[in-house]
């Protein structure tokens, strides 16, 4: 039973991932769609960050926000991404 669930989950997860690999060479996108697709990473990053970041500690949404704001400041100052990640973890850890 669990194996059927695993296989089923694997198939439905794989389908949306692989379809673009097959179709992208068959389609020639107009320039505006290429611009749209190029903007997808930034939009996806935005949508993945917020409001999800508030659920780091679901009962204390401000903790995630504080960690996030600190990460923004460090990243803006040009700090290496690994330091940004570690500093955000430390912020949440110390504020808990």
């Amino acid at each position, binding site marked *: 039973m669990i194996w059927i*669930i695993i296989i089923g*989950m694997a198939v*439905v997860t794989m389908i949306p991932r692989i379809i673009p690999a097959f179709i992208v060479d068959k389609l020639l996108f107009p320039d505006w769609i290429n611009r749209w697709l190029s903007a*997808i990473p930034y939009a996806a990053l935005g949508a993945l960050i917020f409001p999800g970041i508030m659920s*780091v500690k679901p009962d204390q949404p401000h903790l995630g926000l504080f960690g996030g704001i600190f990460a*923004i400041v460090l990243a803006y100052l040009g700090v290496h991404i690994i330091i940004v990640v570690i500093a955000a973890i430390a912020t949440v850890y110390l504020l808990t």
Partner: protein
Amino acid sequence: MEPNYTVVQATSPVALMKKGFSKGFPIMVGYIPIAITYGVLAKQAGMSLTELTFMSILVFAGASQFMGANMIAVGAGVIEIIVATFVLNSRHFVMSLSFMNRLRGSALKWKLPLSMGLTDETFAVTAIHPKEANMKNGLFFYIGIIVTAYFSWVAGSFLGGVVGEIIPERLSQSMGIALYAMFIGLLVPSVKKNKKIVLIAVLAMLINALCVQLGISTGWAIVLGTIIGGAAGIFILKEEEA
């Protein structure tokens, strides 16, 4: 937009793969504690070590695996679990379309495994490094990122299933911010290069938050935020930024 084909860097596959490993390292930091937690939870849900590890090997999608394990624990039906997984993971279609559009012209034998390794995190890191797509052997860079993420996820799941909660709860909870911080660390430098990008990201955030408020599921809220936020790029991005 038009890639500069005159700049063909002759970098070795090994060097590019190593660069991919190092760019994938933040994903590893984020994935391992989450994967361990998944392993523990899946074990408690009644899955065997083999089952929970193979779910990571075959599905490789964090949020849906947590959901799957939870639904197994509460005795949800097979179809229900599979449909919920599809709804949650269909967001990868949009991301994959964006990623594959960059790899246009590469052989399917490379695009196929790369597309299978696409998660929110591997997409974020690969997408923020677009220039490798036009480099000779550049695909090895992306392979390096995905292999790092995949190995961390599978190993972490197995570890969680074997040894249980090895990271103290307070620390593992705090490490829950790691991937968000990574997303921020990827987004902010792009915004510094082109201030207008912040509009795309913030619009996506607001649409996503609005959708969540309206009771739309997490997966679809991210899809809508990504598509509508990305549409702002049609007007904002000029050729050179694509």
